[in-house]
């Protein structure tokens, strides 16, 4: 295991090892990504669009687009091997042990069925509840995710609900079978800040009451800052930095993490010049011998592009992939 991100020691819920995903004509979009998520842990996966964060979590869910393929690597969910799993295994895992919520909640709900029907169906199929029990449990779950008038919501169709309510319904469906891991891919991006904060609170509360682990995928560092215990920063298909949220935000060790912090929301409102990260991320599959961030990095030297840069273990659960780790220590904070 060359490039593993140090994680918790106790039996992880999810273990991803050397995951390589290619799209289209063998263009490698995710390069040997390894990480693990402990029981009940919340981990944020952060990166710009095109960084491979969505492909990584789609591989874990077995929901890669038709052109995508896992080339090698292992994905293990609490002892169950998911790499090369049969359709039957996936059906046993998805929705029961593995829950997921996405950005465009409306497109994941059936528009012609009431939302209560959709949740009750899940409970009857996956948990074998009777019609009456499923109804009762569905109303309980709707109450738990903070929907007002849960009995009334049960009989509503998706189009009658606001975006925030739809997202709550989807969360209720995805936690209905007590999953070990909930993946939220940009689940709050389309919502306004008040609802976003409520949904993030809800996810935190469900973590405590249901003991589920959370993988929060987002492009906004500010969102994970207050929700997650650990952060994985992805850039151009590689994990470039990882560690506890507090450590990473207080002392970033990779210039990209520092750049991301510069462009993230800082919670002050005075007029200022907004920072940007110059240039564009490399296109998918682009062959780069060294650091993939080097062309946009203000600290880059010729050493950065001469050969592969390993993800260096920095101890204390931290790792960073930078050729100038020692030289830049202290310069990035």
């Amino acid at each position, binding site marked *: 295991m060359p490039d593993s991100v140090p994680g918790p020691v106790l039996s992880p819920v999810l273990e991803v090892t050397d995951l390589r995903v290619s799209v289209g004509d063998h263009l490698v979009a995710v390069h040997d990504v390894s990480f693990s998520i402990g029981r009940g842990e919340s981990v944020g996966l952060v990166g*710009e*669009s095109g960084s491979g964060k969505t492909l990584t979590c789609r591989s874990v869910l077995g929901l890669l687009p038709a052109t995508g393929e896992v080339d090698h690597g292992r994905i293990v969910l609490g002892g169950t091997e998911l790499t090369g799993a049969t359709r039957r295994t996936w059906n046993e895992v998805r929705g029961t042990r593995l829950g997921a919520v996405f950005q465009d909640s409306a497109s994941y709900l059936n528009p012609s069925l009431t939302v209560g029907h959709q949740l009750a169906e899940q409970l009857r199929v996956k948990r074998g509840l009777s019609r009456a029990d499923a109804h009762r449990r569905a109303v309980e779950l709707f109450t738990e995710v903070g929907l007002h008038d849960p009995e009334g919501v049960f009989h509503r169709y998706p189009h*009658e609900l*606001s*975006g925030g309510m739809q997202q709550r319904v989807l969360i209720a469906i995805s936690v209905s079978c007590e999953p070990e891991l909930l993946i939220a891919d940009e689940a709050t*991006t*389309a*919502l*306004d*800040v*008040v*609802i*976003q*904060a*409520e949904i*993030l*609170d809800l996810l935190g509360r469900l973590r405590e009451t249901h003991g589920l682990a959370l993988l929060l995928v987002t*492009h*906004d*560092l*500010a*969102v994970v*800052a*207050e929700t997650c215990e650990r952060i994985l920063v992805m850039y151009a298909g590689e994990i470039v930095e990882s560690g506890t949220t507090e450590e990473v*935000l207080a002392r970033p060790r990779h210039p990209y993490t520092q*750049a*991301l*912090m510069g*462009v*993230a*929301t*800082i*919670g*002050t*409102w*005075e*007029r*200022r*010049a*907004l*920072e*940007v*990260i110059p240039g*564009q991320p490399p296109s998918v599959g682009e062959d780069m011998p060294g650091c993939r961030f080097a062309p946009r990095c203000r600290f880059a030297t010729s050493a950065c592009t001469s050969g592969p840069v390993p993800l260096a273990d920095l101890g204390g659960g931290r790792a960073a992939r930078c050729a100038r780790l020692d030289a830049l220590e202290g310069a990035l904070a």
Partner: protein
Amino acid sequence: MTATRERPEVSGPEHTQVAPVLRVSDLSVSYAPPRKGTHLGTGAALTAASLEVRPGEIVGIVGETGSGKTTLARATVGLVRPAAGRIELDGQDMGSLKGRALREFRRSGQVQLVFQDPLRSLDPDLTVAELVREPLDIAGTLSRAERDVRVAESLRLVGLEPESMLGRRPRQLSGGQRQRVSLARAISTHPKLLFCDEPVSALDVSNRNLVLSLLDRLRSELGLAVVIIAHDLSSLAGIADRVAVFYRSRVVEQGPIQDVLQRPAHPYTGLLTASAPSVAHVDRLRPEQLRPQPDARAWPSHGVCVFAPRCRFAHDACADQPAPVTLPGDREAACHVAGEWRTHLTTTKES
């Protein structure tokens, strides 16, 4: 007025004595009235909204989905007819424009819209050159050669190299580049007012700041009045001069952005700023301090203050919708406890 008009002298946002480009007063817009039992019709989309935008100024409009932000933009460009109120553009009453005059006004491109998703709002079959040129063709006031010059000039203004861009199509551009093409298209007619409806919410953080900085530069270089509609305070941070907070079809608070967001007068604005995520550990209110307590009384959905059902500080007076009151520092808020709720906050915290 045509696309060839002279640019006004650049005026800083501080110059509040300058006449506003856009003056909206007591504007109400209503789509089909709600019909019982059908869930059809939304009723009032905008109720007695007033707003002013001056040249060179960026005004942010924040609010949740369905709060009337986009309706205001649609009414201003004449896409929906207001039920009541006035919209004045450069002193001219828009309500008086009808038929041919209205059509000519729209074609002149004095007010332009920029939308959230450039992939959907830009025709995928057109090249960048055709996209940016189209509003000029519609305005029809410039010669062919002049239009070509204007296209190149607009692209340069948004930081794109015309030589490499002109022949490309939207698919061949990155997200940030596409949104900049939308901006180039919007400014090619030299508008006086630019309405940007969620211009950056489809972009990631780095591109977001790039497009926002660009808007900031355009307003000072072109003396452009800009309205940015956002559901998210981070899309306004750092560039907007003033902000108007919308809630359920009403403007509940407005004023200079820093004052409004640092010391909100309306509890909803307080909830907005408390809910905004941040990477810095700043000492601020927590959203749970502002959400209603579990034993809060139930409010009817009509007739009362629009925010009462979600307000921690709702009391008997809130059974009537408060009118906007003027506060010191060029601010106004529509709340019975405007600015005073903080004192209630400390008592609630202690109890």
